[in-house]
């Protein structure tokens, strides 16, 4: 307010101007709300301001912008990406969304995180349109099974296809939706992320299991 709109808009990068408050939580040493100028990298935010990961572990994955966003993982390409809304969307198909960043270290089972997120979305679904009402519940049930040791080898492919029926072309931005509102596609984000980054890890559990 003190700076005036024009001056404020000079901060930031590209179309992502000004500052934003990011709410960093999870396995970081200094969780909290940080107002930063857009354009800063994830690494500077998470390892600088938020103090890095507890016990110096590696980041396994993090949710860059609220539960509805797809995930990023602890590789340099992701950590060195700038906090630029257009850039992350066009490059990684994720969003800065609400600015709620959750960090998960290497001890975490991504399937369990995905299940917890799915449970949230299944509960949040208003029940009006078919794909969201039925799809979020289905995803939740399958992820529950998987995260409780009852997974099957083709579960991940099934989830991915169920997700595709809620949000056709979910991995190829701009995705679309068969639902009325974006809640259904949001519920697909954890599933798409599992499929994208952790397919091998998950499938390895089922080595030797007959489908």
């Amino acid at each position, binding site marked *: 307010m003190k700076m005036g709109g024009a001056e404020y808009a000079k901060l930031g990068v590209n179309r992502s101007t000004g500052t934003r408050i990011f709410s960093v939580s999870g396995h970081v040493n200094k969780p909290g709300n940080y107002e930063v100028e857009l354009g800063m990298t994830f690494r500077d935010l998470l390892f600088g301001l938020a103090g890095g990961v507890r016990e110096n572990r590696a980041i396994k994955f993090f949710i860059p912008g609220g539960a509805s966003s797809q995930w990023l993982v602890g590789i340099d390409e992701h950590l060195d990406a700038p906090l630029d809304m257009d850039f992350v969307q066009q490059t990684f198909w994720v969003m800065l969304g609400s600015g709620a960043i959750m960090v998960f270290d290497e001890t975490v089972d991504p399937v369990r995180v995905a299940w917890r997120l799915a449970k949230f979305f299944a509960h949040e679904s*208003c*029940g009006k349109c*078919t794909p969201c*009402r039925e799809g*979020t*519940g289905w995803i939740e049930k399958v992820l529950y099974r998987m995260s409780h040791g009852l997974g*099957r080898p083709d579960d991940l492919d099934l989830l991915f296809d169920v997700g595709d029926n809620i949000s*056709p072309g979910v991995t190829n931005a701009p995705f679309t939706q068969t639902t009325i509102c974006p809640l259904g596609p949001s519920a697909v984000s954890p599933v798409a992320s599992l499929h994208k980054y952790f397919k091998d890890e998950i499938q390895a559990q089922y080595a030797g299991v007959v489908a």
Partner: protein
Amino acid sequence: VTATESKKTTATVTVDGVTFEAPAGELLIKAAQENGIYIPRFCWHERMEPVGMCRMCLVQVEGGRGFPPACTTPVTDGMVVYTQNDTVKKIQDGVLEFLLINHPLDCPVCDRGGECPLQDQTLSFGPGESRFVEEKRHFAKPIPLSDLVLLDRERCIQCARCTRFAEEIAGDPLIDFVDRGDRTQVLNFDEQPFDSYFSGNTVQICPVGALTASQYRFRARPWDLTTAETSCTTCSMHCRGAVQASSNRLVRLLGVDLDPVNHGWLCDKGRFGIEWVHADDRVREPQLGAGDEWKQVSWPEALDAAAEKLRAAKDSRGANSIAMLGGARGTNEDAFAWAMLAKGVLRTDNVDAQLADGLPAEFLLGMPRAEISDLDTAGAIVLLGCDLEEEVPVLALRVRRAVVQLGVPLVDCAPLEHKLSPHARVVARPLPGEGLPAHVVGEINDVREGRDGPVVVIVGRGNLAASADATVAAAARLAGPNTRFLSALRRSNVHGALDAGLAPGFLPGRVTLEAGREAFTSAWGGVPKERGLDAAGILRAAANGDIEVLILVGCDPATDFPDATLARAALDKVPTIIAVDAFTNTSTKNADVFLPVTLWGETSGTVTNIEGRVQRLNRKVAPEGTAMDDWRIAVELAARLGANADLVTVDEVTDALAASGSAHAGVTAALTRHARDGVVLPLADHRDEVVLRTRELTITAGDGSGTSWDPIKVEGQVPADSTNAVSQSGAGAEPLKPVGSSDIDASDAAAIVAQSLAATEQPMPARHVWSPGSATADPPARDAYALRLVASPVLYDGGRTVRSTPVLARLRAGATLHLNPVDATRVGVDQIGEVKITSARGSQVVEAVADTRVPAGVARYDFTADGAGPASLIDVTAPVTDLRIESVR
């Protein structure tokens, strides 16, 4: 019309490579369907607002992003749509899989199995197998939403058709969604059942077996049913329906979407009131009275006996000693044959199809008429003296639609508040017997606000405890060049019966005795000398010993006449009763001759509804016992009395009426068979409205569109020269093909109408025209301690349909006196309590309740047509009935 102008009204659309023109702004799903492309759907229903919830109709539009639902997307010019490409197929597969994951798949024991849209569309559009291995969701089931409708929440696919129907169409928002996510379910509210007069429609439009009717549940499989298109005659609306039978029993009636009449809806009394046809206590064989007992006899014996009684009475005491009551239950052909027997053969004019529960024939047969569809474009709708939902329920739906959805102003002059009252712009509730308040006429003009359409006055008889005079006087006040009337008299085919001459002073075709004397003397050999008595007059004459033979044609004056005291006195006194009925009742249990007749579902013919629309009834089951059609009994009796009545088939009777009745000119049997929407009388004034059917009704279509849940429509073609031709036929309409029997060349509707009219075109007697009088009799003043009685008919009364249909019998209304809370307090009734009520005729002790819907100064006591209730308090000769009310301590 220039090219640019036509662009504004239509859009060129290409769907799956097929290009067609559709009205601009029409919903894509409908435009495609009209042009032969069926886009799968569950939640969309043509008669309700779209919601886009089920997502089954998602399509791809070229140049657009995403997948819009065809049910919420209007067509635009140049639109290119795909409904069957790989992308859309994948979505359809997905939506169907979602719908099925929690669906119980108990099709083999589900009522809907075999006619289920979910089954059909899964087969046509869905995946073959489910990938769902989790536990399905479970609910307690079935749970009753009401006495008539049960809900299986596991089968429900949450399409909101039932909840939308309840709120939008019926105005009974008693069911709604509760909970969220995959626990979303339809429920009624606590302690408040889904008591709607229209609840059965939700069962019909449910796209799965979630809603089942307690009557039809587990009674039949769809592939066992045979179907006949017909009209419901429970009241005088004559909603189109498809009656279905299994093993010669009527098991189900479905609403057929007849645009001018019922939009596919039925009321529950009509829908479920079919079982009485097969009731155990039906009289199946002719009987002769022998002392206190009856003796079963053959038809020739019974007919001979009846004819002999009639001949003897006529010879000994003259034609006027014979009277006929009833006739509103049968077809037009029945009524015409009875009129011929009574007026042409017996020469008595003591004939009345109304039982002092209607309006004078002089008014009904001569009033300027509106059609039901005029309601939609009316300048205003005036309700004069009737609670439509209790009397003609589906007409109440049409009024509701016009008022709530189309914005037509409503003027409510019914004696009591009713369900449509909150929507009224003008309300006037004069005391029974009093005239219309002067300010109403001016206010009607105010609320019209320049709307062009006519003022449609719906005239009923909402109070059997007051004479019809005040209602007719009010109608006279409202009469004018831009006023049209629509009758709301409930009794089955009463309008057809009156039109066919079953009223004192009238002959078939809406002509008076005088106007038709010459023509009918040459047709029948003679007509009565002078105007006879109406129902009240007949019963008074009978009580005085002036009636020798009383013919009761499907009526029970002892319980169904407002003045029970008079009716019982008359029935006790009259020497000979000839009963033409399907059941014994209080009036006919001592009949001397009992002639058992066929009922709806067992007989064919035509009927005429409140707007004068003649529709064809079709027989679905063989009659019980040796029951005979009314018209045939009348013809047999006429022959035995020496008349040359050479009528052998029901079509010949229809044609005889078409040839002799002024109003019926041209309405031949052949035309009624082919006219999809029936024919509005007189045909010459309504020839443009005739639509010829191009295909017979089918309930299940082969293209995956199970039609019992979607509006059931019969394909048709309007006359080429009609103003409606272009808009109604649509660009994709098939060329006309001859249908059914080849008795008529169905290639050109206009030609057929002309041909039908020409066949009967001869000088016809002039039709009667009502002249509004100005005289209004002043009712006696009400003293301060009396309340004026309103005895209104109720839907679930004690009549035969309700009593002999098990699911409806439970709903039968009780006898309770309703008082305004202020009046109730005065007689010591806080909320509910017993009171003693006394009229000039008698007194009763009755339960009274305080009811804010009753205006001060009146008492509501429902007329239940079972001899109980207000019938013993009413004197039909008095203009009004005043009650003294005392507390009982």
